[in-house]
């Protein structure tokens, strides 16, 4: 019993000693919790860093403060910014990293993201975004509908069904696709349109540099090829078709099955895409109450989607890029080290068959 009391005494002493440490830690009120950081290109050496700091309600008339500074290194910039704000800047609550298109085309994104990837205080859920013009303008602008700019940005890049065309690139995803010789990186592309922000395109990276963008519709098809199970609604506009004009599909479930021929000299892929969806709107001349008309429409949709997929694959072939990881089907059969050159070679010479099987589940409760 005496020993037990002694033990409690010792533990008690050490615990209280822990609380009365001389180097007091700063309390939350004295910290500036940065939630977004933006990067603009100034010149070869310098960049312009802008931080967005959400303010506690009632303390400041501005809901989000933002500051900018020119710097060569990230940490240096954060220290400089600390002297601009009255509080110490910490990045534990970081949510979004924004880069201007110009910055990404210079191939500087990777070194900055690696800096954040290294830092253990940063969570892995930080999203990466490419911005069309200046990031500073995006972070400093007023959004009348969304006063809380930081929460707005954060919400915009939370994975949701209706935006599932976006790759929602996190720090981990970025580093993963950058360092994996098979994948090329995709990052959502943001545009400021009057009083709001919109993901209009998806940026494609060739190793470290941004090279091109694709539309959100094309990006959605790539997500389907990667294996995403639930897709955002698709709007289909038929070209050169007299009976059908326009239709809209919702609640789309997709299932992709891809088989490679294990030969990297003459690579061939069979892509089977099964889609089940609800048809919510239809403009055209078919009488959909008849079963055979229905089946004909499904075939038309299949043809349309097959053509779309082929189009995007052809575009990627020209760029020699593989954001969908198609060459992984060849890497997994390849002995020895796989390199990015092999990926480019496979993609460039890839021969593929695309087959889409579409099933319309229902058209709602009206006839």
């Amino acid at each position, binding site marked *: 019993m005496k020993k037990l009391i002694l*033990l409690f005494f*010792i*533990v008690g002493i*050490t*615990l209280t*000693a*822990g609380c009365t*440490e001389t180097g007091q830690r700063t309390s939350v009120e004295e910290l500036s919790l940065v939630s977004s950081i933006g990067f603009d290109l100034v010149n070869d050496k310098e960049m312009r860093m802008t931080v967005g700091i959400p303010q506690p309600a009632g303390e400041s008339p501005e809901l989000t403060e933002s500051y900018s500074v020119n710097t060569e290194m990230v940490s240096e910039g954060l220290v400089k910014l600390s002297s601009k704000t009255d509080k110490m800047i910490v990045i534990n609550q970081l949510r979004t990293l924004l880069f201007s298109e110009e910055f990404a085309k210079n191939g500087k994104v990777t070194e900055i993201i690696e800096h954040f990837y290294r830092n*253990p*205080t940063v*969570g*892995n*859920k930080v999203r990466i975004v490419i911005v069309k013009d200046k990031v500073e303008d995006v972070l400093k602008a007023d959004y009348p509908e969304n006063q809380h700019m930081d929460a707005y940005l954060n919400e915009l890049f939370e994975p949701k069904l209706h935006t599932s065309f976006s790759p929602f690139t996190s720090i*981990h*995803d970025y*580093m*993963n*696709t950058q*360092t*994996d010789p098979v994948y090329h990186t995709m990052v959502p592309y943001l545009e400021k349109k009057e009083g709001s922000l919109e993901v209009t395109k998806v940026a494609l990276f060739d190793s470290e540099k941004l090279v091109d963008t694709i539309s959100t519709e094309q990006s959605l098809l790539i997500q389907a090829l990667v294996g995403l199970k639930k897709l955002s609604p698709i709007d289909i506009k038929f070209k050169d078709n007299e009976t059908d004009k326009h239709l809209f599909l919702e609640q789309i479930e997709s299932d992709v099955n891809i088989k490679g021929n294990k030969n990297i000299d003459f690579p061939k892929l069979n892509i089977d895409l099964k889609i089940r969806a609800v048809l919510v709107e239809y403009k055209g001349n078919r009488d959909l109450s008849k079963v055979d008309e229905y089946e004909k429409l499904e075939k038309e949709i299949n043809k349309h989607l097959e053509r779309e997929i082929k189009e995007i694959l052809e575009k990627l072939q020209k760029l020699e890029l593989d954001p969908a*990881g198609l060459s*992984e*089907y060849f*890497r*997994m*059969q*390849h*002995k*020895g080290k796989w390199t990015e050159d092999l990926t480019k070679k496979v993609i460039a010479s890839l021969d593929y068959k695309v087959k889409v099987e579409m099933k319309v589940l229902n058209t709602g409760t009206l006839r």
Partner: protein
Amino acid sequence: MMDDNKLKVLNRYHVVFLIQNVIIGTTVLSLPHRLSSMGYSQWWMPLLFGVVANLLLIPMIWLGLKYRNDTLFVIHEKLFGKWAGKTINAILLIYFIVVLSAVSSSFLQLIQVVALVDREITAPLIILLLMTIYIVHGGIKSIARFCIMSFFMTLGLLYFLNWGIADGDIRHTMPIFNFTAKQFFTASKKGLMAIGGFELISFYFPYIINQKKALKHASFGLWLSILFIFFFTFVSVMFFSEWQLKNVLYPVLNLFKEGQLSYLERLDVLGITMWVFLILSTTAAYLWAAKKGIDSIRSSPKKTHLYFVAVFVFILVKFPYMEAFQRILFERVFYLMYALFLWPILLCLIHMIKPKKNEGLE
């Protein structure tokens, strides 16, 4: 304490979880990184380690069955004579102290990097050592009970892997044999230490009630922890690129980072904090063995020996002047562990030769 008079205290559950929990220490957190020279093909390595460990268990238990009431320390004195035996035991003792220090310091450094940024580790170290002493105070049975508890406490960590599985790519597991002999050798050398801990059975074997079935129970415990290690390695291979496996120091922690619960964001901090149970069960078992070591060298069992060992560990971890030496020591000490894996085989051979000589003398 009431078991003090009785030697045989460990039932089959105790054996299973002693083996299982002592194996998992800090090394598991970095195992995918340690095996990274093999690239993606590393995922089945834990299974191979399991087979190796299972084979090594056989001579350990065979030897134990020949000396049913003796720990390895006593066996040394019986086989090599008093002084040679005591010398070997002294080396073993030093080894245990270094392993204890290596495990505690690597865990505390990790805590410092992830959870307690810019704080001194002195206080956590003292608390860790005091907790360890407290567990060891109750003898090997109390350690075994603690192991059972920490198994169920930490089982939930496996749930944190589901985000990694969802975002991972199963195709990374192919091709299965994509490495050179040299890469395989490097990976084995660096990774084998992850299964260290089962060799302690040579020390607590005399405390097992059903010694004849010990091999079965020990193998079961071993494969339980191999499965645990295998899951972490497998999901890491799915989730990371080869570059990330090579460059991220604690892949398993980064896996935890990926998860998110509605009320909790940084699962890695929770994960590393829960990991203290696995660390405590490991340090407790080694501290217990080290205490038995001093007991046998001084030929008298005393509780104060526990505090001696703890003070040595504290000094070794906190000793301010030899950081470089310390780092090398903590990394290299595990090669001695590999020697200890094989040591019982040698003892078995000596044992087989020795009785014949005794018979001849009589």
